[in-house]
């Protein structure tokens, strides 16, 4: 670390990103991102899910090296080639998910690698615990420095992370959605600390979806969209509406043609579904021929709800009915038998067996029906797989090739084939087009629309607003584990969905 003065003149630029680009494979997470953090300011970074905020944070943290562009510290280009380098440069990062060592004590977590040393370079435990206790005192946290981190609530873990950042006098404090799991009192305590750091000359970068917090804490706001910088303005010059418009500001393309279908009978009926601490009192109906989107921010509990509906996750209260028949909770096999299919969020982890062939993957859900006398016939597998890949236009070299050789879009079609071959009545798709190129996206959308037109009830969890708006007959919006709005197609636009998703919209009880 250079011997830079700890408190530069207020307003001086401490850290800047210039034209930073970062790609993962073919996906560009950041393109021409820029950011400027001044000493003594609290700066907000806002954007939709997938706008590149978390990637930007990881560039600042030294986890990802930028492909293009520069990181400037006090006007000098720096290479943050690892978390240790970023920390040495005075950049502290508090991640969305706390990253603690569960088996080690709280004090050791805070001072890992920087433990106070006594004689013979031994760790001075007494001093370690004293310093930790002093930090907690400053933070007003009541935690035992010697207890292990295992079993701490998220809020307390967050406090440990903050104590860690505080312990090395960070000049730049980055907080990636730190308040998502905190209660009001805890948020206030966090903000007190952040303000104090800011007033002491540190730059604070605050990432949040909660606009009231953004406007409460921050002096300036930078908006990102699709990995790009959109605007940086003084918070005083902006309104919530303006920020939302900057975040989503793009045309809803006509790529997503949802055919109008007269909805039929209610096929899926969810009542009062509650899983304590995750989501509560979620009720909705889905009719045949309808596409219902579950919108909301990451962490709002959408995937958790559909997983509970399908029976992968347990729930504490409520009921799920398919065509009037109650489903036993926690039984995916029962859900499948009743006609529910779930295309999971993470197709590489949960949807496909990457090493198996296309045909094997496509027929995994039907292996019992295809088996004769307990033996699977390759011929039957191949025929079924061929039929479905023709229907879905899967572009695969040979059906015997491993599914890992296909493009993301085609992999997704194989997952769809796998579930559609069970002839479901309710199709749940979780982030159906994540990481898929634009052309294939449209194909997946056409397919979903076609399926709905054929009488399937479709529940689509999606974080992509254009997709939600283009495809859904109704948009159910979740915010922090609750269903806060039910917006019919006619009224759904980016503003209304985004406002509801950030907890700004009307919070009427949603009656299906």
């Amino acid at each position, binding site marked *: 670390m250079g011997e830079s003065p700890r408190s530069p003149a207020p307003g001086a630029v401490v850290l800047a990103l210039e034209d930073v680009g970062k790609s993962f494979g073919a996906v560009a997470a950041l393109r021409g991102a820029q950011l400027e953090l001044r000493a003594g300011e609290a700066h907000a970074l806002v954007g939709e899910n997938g706008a590149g905020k978390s990637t930007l944070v990881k560039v600042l943290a030294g986890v990802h090296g930028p492909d293009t562009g520069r990181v400037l510290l006090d006007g000098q280009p720096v290479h943050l080639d690892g978390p240790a380098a970023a920390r040495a440069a005075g950049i502290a990062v508090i991640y969305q998910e706390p990253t603690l*060592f*569960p088996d080690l004590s709280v004090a050791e977590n805070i001072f890992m690698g920087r433990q106070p040393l006594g004689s013979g370079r031994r*760790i001075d435990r007494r001093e370690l615990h004293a310093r930790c206790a002093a930090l907690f005192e*400053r933070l007003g946290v009541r935690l035992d420095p010697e*207890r292990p981190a295992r079993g701490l609530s998220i809020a307390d873990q967050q406090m440990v992370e903050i104590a860690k950042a505080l312990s090395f006098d960070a000049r730049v404090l980055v907080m990636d959605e730190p308040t998502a799991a905190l209660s009001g009192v805890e948020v206030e305590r966090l903000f*007190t600390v952040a*303000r104090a750091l800011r007033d002491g000359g540190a730059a604070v970068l605050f990432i949040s979806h909660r606009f009231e917090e953004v406007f409460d804490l921050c002096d300036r706001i930078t908006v990102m969209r699709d990995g790009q910088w959109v605007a940086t303005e003084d918070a005083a010059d902006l309104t919530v509406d303006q920020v939302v418009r900057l975040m989503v500001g793009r045309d809803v393309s006509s790529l997503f043609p949802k055919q109008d279908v007269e909805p039929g009978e209610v096929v899926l009926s969810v009542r009062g579904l509650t899983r304590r601490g995750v989501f509560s009192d979620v009720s909705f109906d889905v009719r045949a021929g309808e596409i219902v989107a579950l919108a909301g921010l990451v962490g709002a509990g959408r995937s958790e709800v559909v997983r509970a509906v399908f029976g992968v996750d347990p729930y504490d209260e409520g009921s799920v009915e398919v065509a009037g028949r109650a489903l036993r909770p926690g039984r995916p096999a029962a859900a499948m038998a009743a006609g529910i299919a779930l295309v999971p969020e993470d197709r590489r982890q949960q949807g496909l067996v990457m090493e198996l062939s296309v045909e094997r993957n496509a027929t995994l859900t039907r292996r019992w029906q295809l088996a004769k006398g307990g033996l699977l016939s390759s011929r039957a597998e191949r025929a079924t797989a061929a039929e479905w890949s023709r229907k879905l236009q899967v572009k695969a070299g040979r059906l015997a090739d491993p599914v890992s050789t296909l493009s993301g879009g085609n992999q997704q079609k194989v997952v769809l084939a796998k579930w559609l071959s069970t002839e479901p009545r309710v199709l749940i798709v979780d982030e159906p087009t994540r990481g898929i190129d634009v052309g294939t996206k449209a194909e997946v959308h056409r397919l979903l629309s076609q399926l709905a037109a054929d009488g399937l009830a479709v529940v689509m969890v999606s974080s992509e607003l254009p997709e939600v708006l283009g495809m859904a007959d109704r948009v159910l919006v979740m915010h922090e584990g609750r269903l806060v709005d039910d917006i019919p197609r006619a009224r759904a636009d980016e503003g209304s969905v985004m406002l509801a998703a950030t907890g700004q919209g009307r919070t009427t009880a949603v009656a299906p």
Partner: protein
Amino acid sequence: MSERAGSPVDTARPTATPTPAAPPTERPGRGAALVHRLVVVRELGILAALLLLVVVTVVANPRFLSGQNVRDLLISASILTVLAAGQTVVVVTRNVDLSVGSTLGLSAYATGTLLVTAPGTPVPVAVLAGVVVGALCGLLNGVIVAVAKVPSLVVTLGTLYAFRGIDSLWASQSGRLQINAADLPDGFKAIAGARVLGIPVLFLVAVVVVVAVGFVLRSYRSGRELYGIGSDPDAARLSGIPVGRRVLAAFVVSGALAGLAGVMYAARFQTLDATAGTGQELFVVAAAVVGGVAIFGGSGSVYGAALGALLLTTIGAALPQLGLDPFWREAAVGALILAAIVLDRSLSLRLARRLRGRNLRGS
């Protein structure tokens, strides 16, 4: 890390402290006390099992506690203890070293060969040679695990056979399939019987190793970082711990200690061929697991592992005294491992519940 006078947070404290809904203060030291008690319960448990076993055996056969018998027992336990200490260093990082038995064999044979071909070699040099051979084996394991990022289970399974193969090849090529006591210099052979205040030197070596490893693991930054790596490798990377370097070092330590164990083996048995230490690796892992070292890393102490090694050795020695077929030893070890796992699981569940206690917040 200088504490700034009048730190900004201090000035803001008045607004920070009045927290109406603040949770009840967690008594300082309470969490630590819980964990401490768990460790004590865990290690006292092994000690109690050991005592019970000894008492039962002594009742059946009072000669079990005769001086020579106890000394033999301690010497047998020493080799396993040194191996278990090295294994602990690797296992806390969420890795495993299955090649220690073969490393022991290679090191024992190398030391024996050195002493046979150059009988004038001073004993410390011979010991050092064995340790270096072991450290090189560990270095190879560590490089493949840390640099090539291959799971250690697979790497050390491979080197388990590779090192043994080198050992056999060497023994057959050199035309010295077996090294006998008669070939070894007297100075080296004297180690086996040497005592300080009536305590066998080999046992003292094991005690020194355990204390030294325990000290580093507990009181040095690098030692704590090993626990961090095993506790959560991603968090370790994010907090700037040089994960690769530390894991590499852990394997070198494990290899070096297996090398030392090889020298101890050579000194004790004095008859060496290419099969020395065959099958020891799983016994070593068993000792660590019985001693409370979590197989998925992050927790456990070298003292527990040493107690585990002592317990397993004592079982082996006690069964014949109880008139039981030595074959029962395997079954007893198996039962112990299962008991240890069940105990660990239930203790950690209870600890987790206690620690969580006040954190449960309604949604």
